[in-house]
């Protein structure tokens, strides 16, 4: 495994030790993810199916659903996010301790899906940072498991030397998580909803 060294050249022993510690820490983290389920719609049903015996999320160390954000590692937003819930998911995300990751499950959470209207957040990435997007409407349990697999792969590539990935990014003084122009760009209509311009 390659490690990113922010300090340029290191001696051979330090590099070896770092990769060994990284390997151990990442192995532990990736295989004991505790999800915080944020289920708002039909994706939550598929999420429950993923956790149930047939697909059995417990195989990946995620047996314990953490219904308190303070003991959770990964926030799984399963379903559409209305604007009214945006401050709620943001507060849950802020309450989760580092290290933390976010999975956006399904079309609505990832992009607003079919709900390109006045009430719906067009992708939860405008509210919280997202690590893995799982497409589908709703995704099958295999899809979510694949997404979790991708997240584990991502975790196994992290290094504790890189402090930047553990930095907290609270909302700025406007109360936003990114520049307004970026939000407008991310929220632009695409696909069929570009034809949806009727107003009266």
């Amino acid at each position, binding site marked *: 495994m390659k490690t990113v060294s922010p300090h340029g050249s290191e001696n051979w022993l330090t590099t070896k030790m770092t990769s060994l510690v990284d390997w151990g820490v990442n192995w532990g983290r990736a295989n004991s993810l505790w999800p915080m389920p944020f289920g708002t719609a039909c994706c939550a049903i598929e999420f429950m199916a993923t956790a149930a015996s047939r697909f059995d999320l417990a195989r990946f160390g995620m047996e314990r659903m953490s219904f308190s954000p303070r003991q959770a590692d990964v926030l799984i937003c399963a379903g559409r996010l209305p*604007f*009214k819930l*945006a*401050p*709620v998911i*943001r*507060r849950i995300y802020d309450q989760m301790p580092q290290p933390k990751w976010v999975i956006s499950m399904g079309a609505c959470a990832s992009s607003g899906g079919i709900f*390109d*209207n*006045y*009430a719906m*957040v*067009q992708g939860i990435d*405008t*509210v919280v940072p997202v690590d893995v997007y799982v497409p589908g409407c709703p995704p099958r349990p295999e899809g979510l498991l694949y997404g979790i697999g991708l997240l584990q792969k991502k975790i196994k590539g992290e290094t504790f030397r890189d402090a930047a990935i553990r930095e907290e990014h609270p*909302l700025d*003084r*406007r*109360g*936003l*998580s990114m520049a*307004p*122009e970026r*939000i*407008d760009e*991310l*929220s632009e*209509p695409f696909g069929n909803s570009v034809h*949806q*311009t*009727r*107003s*009266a």
Partner: protein
Amino acid sequence: MNPSVAALRERFGGAVTRSFESCGDTIVHVDATRAIEILRWLKDTPGQDYNYLADITAVEHRDGERPIEIVYELFSLTRKVPLRVKVELPKAEELAVDSAVPIWAGANWLEREVFDMFGVTFRGHPDLRRILMWETYAEGYPLRKDFPLRGRFSRSEQVRQALNANPEAHYSMEELAIANVAHELPAEIRDRLARGQRGVIPDPEGGRG
């Protein structure tokens, strides 16, 4: 045709402006100023007994000239008979009717929903606030025909307002059903509920509220 229509015409005369049958449902249009009187009569008169208010909703027609209709779906639980009562509110005038909460307590949230979505005011309503959209929602009334599908503000402005809303400020004491244990709540929460504090949107350049 539901026999209640004939009884209404006999009792209220000109206040019943129109009545017809559509898809097996009887629809009665009544005068807005006397709507509450008529609804109360329909509920309390023996032989009518429309004791269940199933729904209150509103209709705005595509034809901009036509008035907004407030629809009361009544049902008699004893006689198993439905009746639809409509009130017309011309758009040029103030969009307001008297509240039906004194007759049916269940009208409370139904009228709040009509207020939230159509901007119709219910005079005498005990707690007329938005119910589906958050209370600081400033874009207008989403189910009106002149409301754009994606809202009036830009997406970034919508996200900003949503993230600045206080998610805990949406409930009245009655909704929380904690009025009788209010003395056990922390002083800070009790104080906030007593003041009826709601979310505040700070200005874009200022700090967070």
